[in-house]
């Protein structure tokens, strides 16, 4: 019997893979407290909660029995999809399996860093910013290094430059009537139709709906010119406006 198997005959192959996965580190086993916190988070960043797979980590909890089923239900109503449990005693492992979830042994310590520990950002208070009718925002002035200007519900128009080290974000499109030297993230809630437009391109980072290009990836011929950036076939396309 030959070991050589025709690939077409195989129903599947196993592959090892490293997938990015959000770990939900539980500090409380109380489903009500978890529900409260999730509701708050959901309104802050709805883009995150789109049937996102999560691993429930119970390492920090010192409780042999957990209301795992209720915790999972809370997660699902908030569009989080628990796929596995990490850590916990034997009863926890058994109930995870009973719920059709995987079980991982506890992590070896400090490897996992908290995703949410983002350093506080100074939001630009100066200014000259007014809400537009569309739920967007018009910002007049230079967005300086270290500042962040965002339009969480619509388009962002900057009448001025966005300097290196500054960040502009919008749920919709971003228009910069000046030089764009910092980071511009359009479509932050997943709008793939959003675009970025600027008078002079030197951007550190361009992103539309999570698809990004760094300065290094940008065709040097386009630097310094006025361009539009749009998503085409899941690729960021940059074209000259001149």
């Amino acid at each position, binding site marked *: 019997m030959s070991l050589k198997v025709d690939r077409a005959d195989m129903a599947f192959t196993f592959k090892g893979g490293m997938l990015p996965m959000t770990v939900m580190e539980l500090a409380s086993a109380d489903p009500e407290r978890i529900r409260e916190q999730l509701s708050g988070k959901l309104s802050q960043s709805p883009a995150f909660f789109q049937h996102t797979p999560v691993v429930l980590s119970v390492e920090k909890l010192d409780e042999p029995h957990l209301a795992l089923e209720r915790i999972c239900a809370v997660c699902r109503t908030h569009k989080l999809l628990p796929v596995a449990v990490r850590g916990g005693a034997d009863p926890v492992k058994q109930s995870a399996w009973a719920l059709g979830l995987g079980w991982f042994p506890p992590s070896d310590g400090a490897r996992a860093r908290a995703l949410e520990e983002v350093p506080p950002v*100074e939001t*630009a*208070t*100066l*200014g000259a910013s007014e809400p537009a009718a569309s739920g967007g925002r018009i910002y007049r002035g*230079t967005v*300086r*290094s*270290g*500042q962040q200007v965002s339009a969480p519900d619509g388009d962002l128009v900057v009448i*001025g*430059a966005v*300097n*290196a*080290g500054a960040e502009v974000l919008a749920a919709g499109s971003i228009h910069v009537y000046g*030089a764009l*030297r910092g980071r511009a993230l359009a479509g932050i809630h997943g709008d793939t139709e959003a675009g970025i437009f600027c008078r002079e391109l030197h951007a550190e980072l361009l992103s539309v709906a999570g698809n990004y290009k760094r300065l290094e990836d940008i065709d040097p011929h386009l630097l310094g010119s006025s361009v539009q950036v749009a998503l085409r076939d899941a690729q960021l396309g940059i074209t000259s406006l001149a």
Partner: protein
Amino acid sequence: MAKIIVVTSGKGGVGKTTSAAAIATGLALRGNKTVVIDFDVGLRNLDLIMGCERRVVYDLVNVIQGEAGLNQALIRDKRVDNLHILPASQTRDKDALTSEGVEKVLDTLGKDFDYILCDSPAGIERGAQLAMYYADEAIVVTNPEVSSVRDSDRILGLLASKTRRAERGEDPVKEHLLITRYNATRVDHGDMLNLEDIREILAIDLIGLIPESEAVLRASNQGVPVTHDDNSDAGQAYMDTVSRLLGEEVPLRFHELQKKSLLSRMFGGGRR
């Protein structure tokens, strides 16, 4: 009421203290009663640049903590009548400064002086934030290099948000750009950013341009602010800066390459 001007930059070593000393001297020479305060607690330098390091008894921290009166800590400049220095403490750190203490010192000085210059420490932490907090105007010192320009940009952001004027919604702090260590030859060779690039990125009014000069180094080491050296290019450039600060229109100097002489043009063989 005195005008409070902070001399700041974000980045260290760009010439904040040199500029604070030179501009304070210039303001006093022009007849304004001026005091310059060193906010760099723990890394005191202003006294050296002003040449009064041997006469320091009490300092800003002593005054704030009630250990000395303001008049005991103020040092009268030997060369110019209207000029006083309030030194920083070398043995303490920035945590010894309190917001209320600084406000009280500035209020008291404000009754006697026309100009209060605050020489900010580098960085964007407590010391730098306290130095700028009560300012009416800011002189942002920048060298013609990318890191300095970016740090100045960051400081401009803080001036627009972390000052008393910003927090109270008053008229914003008036921002001035002071470019120091400008070397027209190296700019021409592309080793340094040029004037227009810096102005475009920072988008604020230029109050002065100080050429890179041997006179500055000499002045610092001798403890005589370069403004006194009126034969030097840097001394003249600081005096121009002071005139602009006082609202006069003075044409910009020292930013263009020196024209070559006829002889060097004839024998230099170059295109220009």
